[in-house]
């Protein structure tokens, strides 16, 4: 990816509104823009409609009001240029780690696309996420963190330039979560794709993001877009010792805390 394209808007959301069938207003007047190769993280209180926004961008939910475009085209579920990673691993229990990592590629390109080169790439990826030696294991034989790693590798195995990640590490324990965040950053730095990452964990957001978007309490809209200036590759320990990190954390936290209170009121 050349620098000239890096300023180009990849995902553009304008004036998005969404009301569920129950009448609940989930998203209200949301604007969001992700440039090509940018890693943006959306934080917000639970139930603020972050996932709904992501589902609309993925084309899983129809767009009711406002405009959404991905690479200039309206979203449709199943586009090969968009990969989605969920909070649950969604691994196929009858496929091994290798089989699961290859699954997305196989659906996109057919069985014939699984060449030796693709297998070699998958093996490399499995190596990078620390699962080498587990290629032939079935999901049932893996720990929670290992399964989510496999799902991460499946997502990165596809060549989709846009990755949508819906709290992918939300269900992991704190330690495993940090490891996976680090692994995500490593993979992302190898091939900078556009990432829209959703979380309610502010530390995770700052560690990963180029830009943090703060989502309001429901009905959700984007309250603020805050650039995270820290250099990459980032080191969480070093980051946590810097005053800038804590200042930024406090600044976003004060915004977020108000919304969380509103969400509970």
């Amino acid at each position: 990816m050349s620098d000239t394209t890096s300023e180009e808007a990849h995902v553009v959301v304008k004036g998005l509104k969404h009301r569920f069938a129950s009448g609940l207003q989930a998203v209200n007047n949301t604007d969001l823009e992700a440039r090509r190769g940018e890693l943006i993280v959306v934080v917000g209180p639970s139930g603020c409609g972050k996932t709904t926004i992501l589902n609309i961008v993925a084309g899983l939910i129809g767009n009711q009001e406002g405009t959404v475009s991905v690479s200039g085209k309206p979203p449709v579920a199943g586009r090969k240029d968009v990969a989605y990673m969920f909070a649950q691993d969604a691994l196929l229990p009858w496929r091994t780690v290798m089989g699961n990592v290859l699954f997305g590629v196989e659906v996109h390109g057919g069985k014939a696309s699984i060449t030796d080169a693709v297998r070699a790439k998958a093996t490399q990826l499995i190596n990078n996420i620390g699962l080498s030696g587990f290629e032939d294991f079935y999901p049932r034989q893996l720990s929670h963190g290992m399964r989510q790693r496999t799902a991460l590798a499946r997502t990165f195995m596809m060549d989709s330039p846009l990755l949508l990640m819906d709290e992918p590490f939300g269900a992991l324990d704190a330690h495993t979560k940090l490891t996976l965040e680090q692994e995500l950053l490593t993979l992302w730095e190898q091939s900078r794709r556009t990432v829209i990452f959703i979380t309610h964990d502010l530390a995770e957001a700052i560690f990963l993001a180029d830009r943090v978007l703060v989502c309001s309490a429901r009905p959700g809209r984007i309250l603020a877009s805050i650039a995270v200036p820290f250099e990459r590759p980032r080191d969480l320990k070093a980051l946590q010792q810097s005053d800038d990190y804590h200042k930024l954390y406090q600044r976003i936290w004060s915004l977020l805390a108000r919304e969380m209170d509103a969400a509970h009121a």
Partner: protein
Amino acid sequence: MREQAIPQPRTHMRFEFVSASLKLNLGRLAIGAAFCFVWWALVAGGVVSAFHVSTPGAVAAYLVQAPKELLPHTAATLGAMMSAFGLAAVCGILGGLLLVEVPYLRRLIDPYLTGFNSMPRIALAPLFILWFGIGSTSKIALAFSLGFFIVLNSTVAGVKNIDPMLMRLSRTLGCTPAERFFKITLPWALPTVFAGLKLTLIYSFLGVVTSEMIASRSGLGYLVMYYSGIFRIDAVLGILFVMAIVAILLTMVADFIEQKLVGHWTESVNLPV
């Protein structure tokens, strides 16, 4: 010589495994032997009469001379059973898939299915005999009427309980309906369908033997009725023993196939590291 000094954990483990399974099987044999001994002692002590319960020796004597008679009848029972099982499997799976694909149809015929399935099927046997005669067709019909619903219900259950996350995954990946069916729905439903098929195997056996006991000219059920009619308790018990062996063998074959087909991913296995 030096190699002998090196401990060989693998061989050791295998040896322990063999001795453990040997112990288990010896224990199982001991239970059978104890049962036979109590049986023999009750008859020998005059507590129960040999006329009613026969003796282990008489049953063994019958079984020794019986193969010539038992083989064709066992073959007749197994043949009818396999036909019923095959029909129930094919019709049940296809019917189940149809009901999942057309939910309206399922809602439409649901009361009929429930009604028919909760009816004691043995009550249908006289009708089937009237319609199809006392040959193998009426046996197959009764066994099919039991097995079909088991396969149908397990297929519907297997497809319906699919993990919604996998359906979401298939949508985001852009799976075609055929890909979704063959790569996700079908393998997902397989263990449940297989559990239904295993049950159907045993129920087909039950259905065929029941039908044979009501009216038939061949099969193990027919033999049981024949011998109990002439008070040959030794033969009746011998045939029951054969039936039990057949049922155990069928279950073992089904377990083996299940293990080969889905065992590697459904069985919870401990990490070997």
